[in-house]
């Protein structure tokens, strides 16, 4: 598949400045193994990844695992920087997918749950070729999601946060929030709909 031209086609100036800065850092690493950019990335993302490790329950198995997730994710960013393509995903999205994959692999290793396929087989990274990627005008999508989250009612925001960043099934999220399972499910559905993650109206749900 040819490299898409989304980047040059979208003239409007909607991209959040900060995320451009991180994309610049990744490109500097890809082009000239720039350590200073790496330290910048580390200072920004390492605390978030550690926060993610804690919220998703990794630390229940010891604090060392949180640090391991941070170190592995950051090392992966360094090694895979040349695969980053800002026309396919923002730096933040990319970091999220890498941290998620490593978190799943770490947990499987901890639980000695041996499987033939690893995370890289089960989740296609946003940089890999993909049809369907182009119509998702990513900058637009992300800005919309940011705005949407700020406007979500607090109960929906809470459920979405639990589902994404905590290792919770819908049932467990319901128990945490002291709500019936059906309520949790309908809040998730409502929140996803409001965030218009799919851009197109999801009439078939």
């Amino acid at each position, binding site marked *: 598949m040819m490299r898409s031209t989304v980047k040059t086609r979208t003239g409007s100036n909607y991209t959040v400045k900060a995320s451009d800065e991180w994309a610049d850092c990744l490109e500097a690493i890809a082009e000239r*193994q720039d*350590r200073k950019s*790496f*330290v910048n990335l*580390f*200072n920004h993302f*390492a*605390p*978030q990844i*550690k*926060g*993610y490790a804690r919220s998703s329950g990794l630390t229940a198995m010891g604090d060392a695992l949180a*640090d391991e997730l*941070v*170190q592995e994710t*950051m090392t992966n960013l360094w*090694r895979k*920087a*040349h695969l980053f393509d800002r026309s396919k*995903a*923002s730096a*933040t*999205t990319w*970091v*999220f*997918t890498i941290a*998620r*994959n490593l978190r*799943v692999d770490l947990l*499987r290793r901890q639980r000695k*749950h041996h*499987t*033939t*396929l690893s995370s890289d*087989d*089960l*989740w*296609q990274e*946003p940089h890999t070729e993909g*049809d*369907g*990627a182009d*119509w*998702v005008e*990513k900058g637009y999508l*992300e800005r919309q*999601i940011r705005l949407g*989250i700020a406007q979500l009612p607090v109960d929906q925001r809470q459920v*979405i946060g639990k*589902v*994404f*960043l905590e290792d*919770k*099934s819908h049932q467990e999220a319901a128990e945490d929030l002291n709500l019936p399972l059906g309520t949790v499910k309908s809040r*998730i*559905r409502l929140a*996803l709909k409001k*965030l218009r993650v799919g851009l197109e109206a*999801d009439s078939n*749900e």
Partner: protein
Amino acid sequence: MSKFHPDQARLADYVAGTLSYHETLMIAVHLHFCPECKAYVQGLEALGGVLLDDLPGEPVSDSLLQATLNAIESKPEAERRTEPSYRHPEVPAPLQKLVPSGFDTLPWRKLLPHLQVCDIEISPNGPKISLHRIRPGGRIPRHTHRGDEYTVVLKGGFSDSLGDYNPGDFLYRSGEHEHEPVAAESEECICLTVTEEPLKMTNWKWRWMNPFLS
């Protein structure tokens, strides 16, 4: 284009990384066929990024930065962009490692006159991941499953009383669901299936099979 999709909450769990191994695999295979769900997943990943960004960070020690710098020092070579290795055109990318040289070379075993099965991954702490292959026009006697069952059609198609299924279609059926699938006439049908328990014949003519279906 597939017509039967996983629901959006399940896709959100896939993106969050909280589904079981076999559910994750079934969704990954569906995405291979379905640009619509793939685009939706990309949106969910962007949402994951935004949520990560909003998370209150936790202080990280200087020694961790130092250790990470040492780690990248010891692996200075950037990973080369690897050319996609050869894969059999029939086999969706996520299944490559489990079906490295195409469906025909697998050790199929005959379960019924029209039906062959091959377990492609068996793990002690999870359900079996299998392929089922039905001859063109083959009819599988009415049965239920003793546990929940996931199916993704990989090749050909089949029908039951609820619909016609084509490559990429994702089906989730609870254990009580009873069906009598019939493969399309034009070609054989291959499905990826995860069943928590083996199928159970309900048609009286075939009930004697039940003890042998494990």
